[in-house]
């Protein structure tokens, strides 16, 4: 009761403006104390690196440090934009992301719909367990398994293909097939995990809608087309927008581990390029330019996607 009164008093006085900020800090000292390490963490490991982005505009010298290095304006940008490999890595990032999205996105929804039709709880639970399994494997392991399966001379898949009387396919060594293999590995890894969100949305649909449709004589397919899909429309749109807003970001692991020198013209993406230029060759300023450019484009796409979502009457993501 005492606390409730105090809180009320707090609210009232905030409006009258007589209680000062120290009152609240003292009242919630434990909460602020809990936040202290988290805030410190974010400042040191997230916000200080943001300040570090200024080296994109400097000729960064390890010995002089960030403040001591010379300003060079947009010179680094000019140099990066004139590099063919930079544009190539952007193109590759977009190709790999878009083709993965094009296969993964509809398939995930399809599998979610299929799982939802399963009425035996045991079958459903066990099959879900197995579908989630690849998500828990590391990219090192997935790439190891993939090289084993898709190797040109002695991989299991090619042995089967040869057994059927066809020529072996260079899954890992020719540019076109490599993109195919990359997409397959990604879809394999994440398709099951992706269904969770749609299954959750489907569970939330009012059962009476289905009953009404059933009485009106709608078949299973019709119920999916006219009830399930429209009811999860906003989830589908939000997921699509989220994926599109990540078009310029790509994990380093998959392209680096699956790629090899023969397919570097398609496997060199933004993150691997930054890694090779920044970490391996220690070209800090140039690689920071690429990172900054990537972040800027990301923000731009995100805002655009959010605007679009709101335009078509959805909630948006920001």
């Amino acid at each position: 009761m005492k606390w409730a009164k105090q809180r009320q008093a707090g609210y009232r006085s905030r409006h009258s403006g007589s209680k000062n900020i120290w009152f609240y800090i003292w009242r919630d000292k434990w909460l602020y104390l809990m936040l202290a390490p988290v805030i410190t963490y974010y400042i040191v490991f997230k916000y200080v690196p943001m300040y570090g982005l200024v080296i994109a505009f400097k000729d960064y010298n390890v010995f002089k440090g960030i403040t001591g290095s010379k300003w060079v304006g947009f010179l680094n940008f000019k140099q990066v934009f004139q590099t063919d490999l930079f544009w190539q890595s952007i193109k590759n990032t977009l190709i790999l992301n878009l083709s993965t999205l094009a296969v993964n996105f509809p398939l995930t929804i399809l599998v979610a719909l299929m799982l939802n039709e399963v009425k035996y709880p045991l079958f459903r639970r066990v099959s879900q367990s197995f579908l989630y399994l690849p998500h828990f494997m590391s990219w090192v392991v997935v790439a190891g398994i993939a090289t084993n399966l898709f190797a040109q001379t002695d991989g299991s898949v090619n042995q089967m293909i040869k057994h059927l009387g066809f020529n072996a396919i260079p899954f890992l060594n020719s540019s076109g097939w490599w993109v195919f293999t990359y997409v397959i590995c990604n879809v394999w890894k994440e398709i099951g995990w992706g269904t969770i969100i749609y299954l959750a949305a489907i569970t939330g649909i009012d059962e009476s809608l289905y009953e009404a449709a059933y009485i009106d004589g709608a078949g299973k397919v019709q119920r999916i087309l006219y009830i399930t899909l429209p009811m999860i429309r906003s989830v589908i749109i939000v997921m699509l927008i989220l994926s599109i807003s990540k078009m310029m970001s790509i994990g380093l692991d998959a392209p680096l581990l699956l790629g090899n020198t023969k397919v570097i013209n398609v496997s060199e993406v933004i993150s691997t390029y930054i890694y090779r230029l920044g970490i391996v060759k220690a070209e800090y300023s140039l690689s920071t330019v690429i990172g900054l450019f990537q972040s800027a484009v990301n923000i731009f796409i995100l805002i655009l996607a959010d605007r679009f979502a709101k335009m078509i009457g959805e909630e948006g993501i920001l």
Partner: protein
Amino acid sequence: MKNMGVSKKIKINWGTVINYFLLTILVVICFYPFLNVVAYSFSSNRAVLSGTVTFFPIEMQLDAYKEIVHRGQIWTAMRVTMLVTLLGTAIGLILTVFAAYALSKDKLKGRRWISGMILFTMYFNGGIIPTFLVIKNLGMYDQLTSLYIPSAVNVFNFIVMRTFFREIPKSLEEAAYLDGATDVQILFKIVLPLSMPIIATIGLFYAVYYWNDYFNALIYIQSPEKYTLQLRLRSLLFAGELGAAGNEGLAQQVMAESLKMACIVVGTVPILAVYPWLQKYFVKGVMLGSVKG
């Protein structure tokens, strides 16, 4: 009457049959590659060479696993990864609980600013190189701390946890406030006991992240004795380290093949042994994360 009952039983819904059939195939596709690796790791040299191993081991033997026990490198890497996973998960959970609990309170002044500061990093950050330079300047380069400190709090996990805390009925906490309990006491005596499912879920997410992390180790770790399991696996699987040891003959090379497979099994099984038991919880966790923060 009897006839009707029978005809109802016989009636087969082909759509359902096809659905179950396709899902079964999908399950096999998801599981087979791993099962195949397990089968290879237990098979004899002759069977591996003939390439006939599919679902089950042929001429079962344990040589590959014995070899792993003899090679110190893999155990060293395993120990490093266990340590990093343990510390990373513990630190991650503590910080995430603290942040999520404090910022789930409506009464806290400045909570919008602080939440905003955390969420902003999801959309914009310094990127690989500036972060690398900060870690280097802090003297964490080639230290194990570089593996579990710089990624201690995950924004997604924070959102999931905060959403969960917000859903706990306020009346429980208010009763405790009336008894004069502090925020810390309420967290440990009321909120945490109610939050075990979400703690397990977020713990699993962190543990999987650290166990599978390759990127941070690749960038920050240089000394071979500090190699994590994924880094060691990568050098065993791709760089042909095993091949160098097996130049003496075909038997050695085949050995190398099943040894690779055994390494994959050893590196994957700990995580695979845990997640099915937490399935019901992490499904809920993903759902909570989808509710906008």
